[in-house]
């Protein structure tokens, strides 16, 4: 594999950049693999990479219905954070933060990880108390948390509405200075390129049509490009989880919903980090190109449409304008949607299933991007060792029936209001 560096850039400039190697091959599927990962998004590609790197399992295929990076890894708002209250989420995502920090070097691909910080705004005394509690939990897990008062928030985001007559005045906020953003496509491409160089087959335009199960064990799968045998199959299909579960005769604690995001026209630097509105569902950051990147509520009813409806965008941006009045004068550049595997407690599932050799990675809700490295790392461990790692043992499939929910926001099973 060609190493990317300033020298290779200069060298290739002399040949008009026409002689770069392909970043990954386009193989035809083999008849049999040791492990097949379904889903060529961030989680699937990261799993394949860590299977090869940490567990030396390289006879691996990643099967993707469309093209790699075409799903939620290319549709999210690129926020990376570990500001969780519960131990399972906090430890898991803080482990991921360390992988993020070294990712560009490790993958030899600039993922532009930028730890610019996140602030969750509070708009009442009760919310400040809740944030103080969450901040303390975070610090107990070694995560940097800073409780900010109104004046401290004003220093960081002076353009927010700090006037006295607003409906939801800013009381303060909880900051995680080490949180940040990254270039989402590069994460998929970086993992794909490294996995490919270690022998992983990345098979695009290949849809799974069925599974072969014998005596409670998985033995292979049927795809639009032929049958593939494998004793271990991992599902990393996010918004298509329920569709594949139906083919497996499984019913999961997952509902599929649609989340929209949007970007404005690019403007000069105005917003340093990521900010979330505490009185409505709205979050915002500014991309390196200058666009304001925004998102908020789910569309509110089960959907596989991958595109959203205008009332939700209008509702989200009403909250946005209440927080940052200057947004009302910006033009929207694009809006788009992705389909989310909403779990019944808002936390993910990384576990074995009742079918031997079938592993499940789903339930990321709308927060899967930050967990790409930690999810890939732990899922690779779960598949390679056939047992969960201590980092993902809380994310079990049977926690719902057992009553060990990890309900970070206390919203319960109404996934569409999350």
């Amino acid at each position, binding site marked *: 594999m060609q190493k990317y560096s300033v020298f290779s850039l200069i060298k290739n400039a002399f040949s008009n950049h026409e002689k770069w190697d392909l970043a990954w091959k386009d193989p035809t599927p083999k008849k049999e693999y040791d492990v097949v990962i379904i889903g060529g998004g961030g989680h699937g590609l990261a799993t394949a990479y860590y299977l090869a790197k940490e567990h030396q399992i390289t006879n691996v295929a990643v099967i993707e219905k469309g093209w790699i990076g075409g799903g939620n890894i290319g549709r999210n708002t690129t926020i990376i954070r570990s500001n969780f209250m519960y131990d399972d989420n906090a430890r898991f995502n803080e482990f991921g933060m360390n992988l993020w920090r070294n990712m560009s070097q490790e993958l030899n691909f600039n993922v532009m990880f930028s730890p610019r910080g996140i602030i969750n705004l509070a708009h009442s005394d009760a919310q400040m108390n809740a944030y103080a509690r969450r901040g303390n939990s975070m610090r107990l897990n070694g995560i940097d948390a800073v409780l900010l008062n109104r004046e401290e928030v004003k220093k960081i985001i002076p353009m927010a509405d700090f006037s006295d007559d607003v409906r939801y005045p800013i009381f303060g906020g909880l900051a995680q200075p080490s949180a940040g953003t990254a270039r989402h496509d590069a994460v998929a491409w970086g993992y794909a390129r490294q996995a490919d160089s270690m022998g992983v087959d990345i098979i695009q335009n290949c849809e799974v049509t069925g599974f072969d199960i014998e005596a409670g064990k998985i033995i292979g799968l049927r795809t639009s490009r032929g049958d593939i045998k494998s004793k271990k199959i991992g599902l990393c299909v996010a918004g298509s989880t*329920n*569709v594949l579960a*139906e083919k497996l005769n499984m*019913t*999961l*604690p*997952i*509902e*599929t919903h649609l989340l929209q995001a949007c970007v404005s026209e690019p403007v000069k630097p105005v917003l340093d980090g990521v900010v979330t509105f505490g009185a409505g569902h709205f979050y915002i950051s500014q991309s390196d190109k200058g666009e304001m990147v925004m998102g908020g509520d789910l569309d*509110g*009813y*089960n*959907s*596989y*449409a991958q595109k959203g*409806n*205008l*009332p939700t965008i209008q509702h989200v941006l009403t909250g946005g304008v209440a927080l940052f009045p200057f947004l009302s004068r910006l033009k929207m550049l694009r809006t788009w949607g992705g389909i989310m595997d909403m779990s*019944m407690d808002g936390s993910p599932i990384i576990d074995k299933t009742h079918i031997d050799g079938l592993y499940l990675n789903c339930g990321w809700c709308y927060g899967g991007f930050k967990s790409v490295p930690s999810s890939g790392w732990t899922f690779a461990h779960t598949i390679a060792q056939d047992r969960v790692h201590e980092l993902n043992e809380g994310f079990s499939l049977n926690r*719902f*029936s057992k009553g060990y929910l990890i309900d970070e926001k206390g919203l319960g*099973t*109404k996934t*569409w209001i999350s």
Partner: protein
Amino acid sequence: MLNIKCPYCGDRSQKEFAYGGDGTITRPKLNQEISDEEWDNFVYLRKSPRGKHIELWHHIAGCRQWFKVERDTTTHEIFRTFKPEEEF
């Protein structure tokens, strides 16, 4: 924007309604021994199909009645709306 026909009031904009989730789930009967599995099915497990989906909607900014909708989860086409007691 969805246009939903409330069986009591007629065609209205989506903005008048609140979603109520999967309309095929039935609560286990009261005053009976109920297994963990039955509770699990009722509280947590959902088919969430791609395609036709029967779901509950609440005409919250109108007549405040609950009713059921059969809708396609990919195209959002609404095939029919009906009162809960009118099922099939």
